[in-house]
């Protein structure tokens, strides 16, 4: 076995050690390759006990715990007597109380707690927690609380179905062995497995055996309570360890608190077991206003205030000048005996010796831990001064252990608890009894006080049953609640524009472009505004609007105070209007902050502002983007050749008017482009991982209409009825992708469009066939999503083929049919089905592929595609599309 400490460490730890000191283990020098067969035997038995314990039910366990608690209570006086006799520390009466706290109080807290099988059901999170015992515990016990620690550790170990083997401090080995034996017999009688409690007996090699024990392969967890050295050794055993060490409790007595109550509580606490309880008060920090009064109160209850000379004499008695730590000889001794040793004459009924420490003397030895009825007192000039002094004590050994405050002022309590590093911050209670838990408060009852990293411990908890369990979490699959959100008013059919008249608009800000102005569409809109409605027109929107356009729009709108925004135009105009309205309503937000990428917009990092001061009416004049019903807004970043998508349902227009009379002048080519974009929206939303019954219904109808209507639009572009069909279909597809998103086809189209300036719809067209092939293959990687349990892209494409009239029954054939039908649609609409049909040279295209792949790979649309492409697959798709 090897140890991590160097000889220097050894010395330092030895000095730092609080309760053990000289008689304590000098682990390092005694580390040898000894073997102790009886320790092996003890642990093998414990190992089997822990294994057999796994079969026990909660009822069986609780019966054993009850029996052991009864035994502990019956023997509490006897154990206390043995402890005082053997250790010559502490007070018999208080040791009885400690034994009772460790049994009765502890039992009260844990008796109804579940420690077997399911111990907690977290309904909201659809998760259960299951207990798995830790196994075999090596438990080290301190000389200060030998019997109570054995009671406490045995009970929590049995309650959690673990086996425990005690290694006592040499000076308490007899009372520990006796206590463990009594409890073990009671446990066995109640049905506990043989070997569930074990102990090392007093012998000259106890320290070596302890070392041997904590390094033993049969030990699963080291649970050490005691001095700093011992705890460090426990942590360095290489085993999981719960080690808890020494404290140095500062207590702030604030002027808002009643002095006589504070004096009494401190007195109860500091005299408990003659101060032999590590969370007990060590240094009082007292507000100047009440300082003298408090000391008077202490005097009244037989505490002694040392004069300056007496404090000088007392200091080297309490804190050993050689080691710099408390003098082991006086730990847990009566106050008068300690005074006597210092040559101070005090009555034998003196409860506590209080020593006033000069505030300048930050390194005064008495500011350290002293587990005896000696208290240091510091006077504080102000609240700030008091808090700093508490911090000074808090960081003079004992960081992370315990601190206390007496105050009625909640503000000062709030400051104190935030500043001080202590696992338990005891407010308006005695710190020693308060720290134990279960008597003055609801802390878990314990005799092991975790100090966190401040004390080089693994926990700040009052170590309890849950620290002795491996808690297994079983989360159930969470089906994500989905949504379906669209504008709450959609008006459609030729002439529906006149619905504008009924809106209660007072100031309408109309956003459009020059073409709309020229074609008279803008005039139509103005003619249909409600009576008396003021309006202002901003017609500077260009195709693929940039942030500059939005800024210009914002300047126009700034002194107009609109209550309605009306967007009249294609996707570009509608998106620009969404942007203008967003920054008009929320002038303080930054564009960069809203465009942060996300996978699930409900979990995304940024929080989107809520809009609603104004209403947005979207009147599309192209049949494609679906922007009139979508939560998306695409803004071009011209400098970086990028398109930035803002996405939030706050961006969705409030009202959409789908009036085909406004589309009839759209030339044939953009009609085909935008139409096939809508077709792609529906096709991709139908196989998206977010696809659902609501969006599926819209997709199927949109696909069917576009398949039948788009070629007719190309033939008879001025037919209002045909146009209306196409216009409706685009909005249906828009509603679908607004809720189910799109996929890889769009990711590739975005990349191609940005690189070669191909219109968006056309760019979609050239990837339609390869996307179907890709998604109907067997994915190399599936796209994970909790709501989907099967990969059904193929079946869904087949369903589309059927809805388009294919008579086939086999999936493969249906997919072939679908591709044929799409080819036919493209050719009838004058659209390309390969990149080679676009005006892009092969060499240029091949050279661009790495860039295209990288852009498409980072595209948000990709994340909802059912099949997750590998980079090389994406590259293949681009190559094959030429």
């Amino acid at each position, binding site marked *: 076995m090897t140890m991590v400490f160097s000889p220097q460490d050894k010395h330092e730890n030895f000095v730092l050690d609080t309760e053990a000191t000289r008689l304590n283990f000098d682990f390092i020098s005694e580390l040898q390759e000894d073997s102790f067969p009886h320790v092996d035997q003890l642990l093998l038995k414990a190992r*089997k006990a822990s294994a057999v314990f796994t079969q026990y039910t909660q009822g069986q366990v609780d019966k054993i715990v009850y029996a052991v608690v009864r035994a502990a209570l019956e023997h509490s006086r006897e154990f206390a007597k043995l402890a005082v006799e053997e250790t010559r520390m502490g007070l018999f009466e208080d040791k009885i109380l400690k034994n009772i706290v460790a049994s009765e109080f502890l039992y009260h807290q844990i008796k109804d707690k579940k420690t077997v099988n399911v111990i907690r059901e977290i309904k909201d999170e659809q998760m259960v927690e299951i207990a798995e015992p830790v196994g075999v515990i090596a438990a080290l016990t301190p000389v200060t609380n030998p019997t109570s620690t054995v009671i406490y550790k045995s009970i929590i170990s049995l309650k959690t179905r673990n086996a425990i083997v005690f290694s006592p401090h040499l000076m308490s080995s007899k009372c520990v062995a006796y206590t463990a034996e009594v409890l073990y017999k009671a446990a066995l009688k109640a049905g506990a497995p043989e070997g569930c409690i074990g102990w090392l007996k007093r012998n000259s090699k106890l320290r070596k055996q302890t070392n041997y024990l904590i390094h033993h392969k049969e030990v699963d967890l080291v649970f050490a309570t005691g001095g700093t050295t011992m705890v460090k050794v426990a942590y360095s055993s290489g085993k999981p360890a719960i080690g808890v060490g020494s404290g140095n409790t500062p207590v702030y007595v604030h002027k808002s608190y009643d002095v006589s109550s504070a004096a009494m509580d401190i007195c109860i606490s500091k005299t408990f077991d003659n101060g032999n309880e590590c969370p007990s008060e060590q240094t009082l920090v007292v507000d100047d206003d009440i300082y003298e009064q408090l000391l008077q109160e202490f005097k009244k209850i037989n505490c002694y205030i040392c004069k300056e000379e007496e404090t000088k004499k007392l200091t080297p008695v309490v804190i050993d000048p050689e080691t710099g730590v408390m003098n082991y000889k006086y730990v847990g001794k009566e106050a008068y005996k300690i005074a006597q040793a210092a040559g101070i004459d005090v009555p034998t009924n003196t409860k506590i010796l209080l020593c006033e420490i000069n505030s300048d003397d930050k390194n005064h030895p008495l500011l350290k831990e002293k587990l005896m009825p000696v208290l240091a007192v510091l006077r504080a000039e102000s609240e700030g001064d008091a808090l700093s002094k508490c911090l000074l004590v808090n960081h003079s050994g004992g960081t992370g252990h315990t601190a206390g405050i007496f105050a009625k002022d909640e503000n000062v309590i709030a400051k104190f608890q935030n500043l001080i590093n202590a696992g338990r911050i005891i407010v308006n209670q005695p710190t020693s009894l308060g720290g134990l838990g279960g008597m003055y408060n609801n802390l878990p009852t314990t005799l092991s006080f975790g100090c966190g990293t401040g004390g080089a411990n693994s926990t700040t908890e009052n170590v309890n049953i849950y620290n002795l369990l491996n808690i297994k979490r079983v989360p159930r699959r969470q089906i994500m609640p989905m949504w379906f959100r669209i504008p709450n008013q959609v008006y459609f059919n030729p002439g529906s524009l006149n619905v504008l008249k009924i809106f209660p608009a007072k100031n309408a800000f109309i956003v459009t472009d020059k073409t709309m102005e020229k074609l008279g569409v803008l005039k139509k809109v103005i003619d249909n505004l409600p009576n008396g409605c003021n309006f202002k027109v901003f017609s500077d929107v260009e195709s693929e609007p940039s942030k500059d356009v939005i800024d210009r729009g914002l300047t126009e709108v700034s002194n107009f105070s609109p209550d309605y925004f009306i967007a009249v135009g294609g996707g570009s105009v509608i998106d620009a209007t969404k942007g203008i309205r967003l920054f008009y309503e929320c002038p303080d937000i930054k564009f960069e902050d809203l465009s942060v990428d996300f996978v699930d917009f409900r979990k995304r990092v940024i929080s989107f502002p809520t809009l609603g001061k104004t209403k947005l009416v979207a009147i599309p004049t192209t049949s494609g983007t679906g922007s009139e019903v979508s939560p998306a807004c695409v803004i071009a970043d011209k400098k970086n050749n990028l398109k930035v998508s803002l996405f939030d349902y706050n961006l969705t227009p409030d009202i959409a008017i789908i009036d085909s009379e406004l589309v009839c002048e759209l030339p044939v080519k953009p009609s085909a482009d935008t139409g096939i974009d809508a077709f792609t929206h529906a096709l991709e939303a139908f196989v998206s991982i977010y696809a659902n019954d609501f969006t599926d219904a819209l997709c199927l109808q949109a696909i069917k209409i576009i398949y039948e209507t788009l070629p007719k639009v190309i033939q008879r572009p001025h037919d209002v009825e045909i146009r209306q069909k196409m216009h409706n279909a685009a909005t249906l597809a828009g509603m679908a992708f607004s809720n189910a998103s799109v996929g890889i086809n769009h990711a590739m189209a975005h990349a191609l469009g940005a690189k070669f300036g191909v219109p968006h719809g056309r760019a979609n067209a050239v990837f339609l066939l390869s996307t179907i092939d890709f998604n109907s293959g067997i994915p190399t990687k599936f796209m994970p999503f909790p709501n989907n349990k099967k990969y059904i892209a193929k079946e869904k494409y087949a369903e589309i083929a059927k809805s388009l009239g294919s008579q086939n029954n086999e999936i493969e054939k249906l997919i072939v049919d679908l591709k044929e039908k799409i080819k036919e649609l493209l050719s009838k609409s004058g659209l390309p089905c390969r990149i080679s049909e676009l005006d892009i040279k092969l060499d240029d295209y091949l050279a661009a592929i790495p860039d295209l792949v990288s852009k498409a790979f980072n595209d948000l649309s990709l994340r909802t595609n059912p099949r997750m492409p590998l980079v090389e697959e994406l590259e293949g798709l681009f190559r094959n599309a030429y």
Partner: protein
Amino acid sequence: MPIKNLFNGEMTSNEVIDSAFSLLENQALDRNEILINFQNLVFVSVYFLEKLESFIEKAKKLNVKVQIKNVPPSIYKVFRVARVNEILKLCF
């Protein structure tokens, strides 16, 4: 030849365990193979584990091949947690 119904229910009483293992040991004397069926075993105690371990050791000395089958998972977990390799080797 398998030995049936020797190990039944909760094996908690030391007397019951003793008699079951002494029967088993007698069988071991005139065979060269023993198949123990744990199908009906519900609970094992520390004493049972120790007895089983020592039986396996004895059988080894007598050159009798021991096999344990149908170990219920809760009992198999006990063997696992107890880390008794001699027993684990013979299971299944």
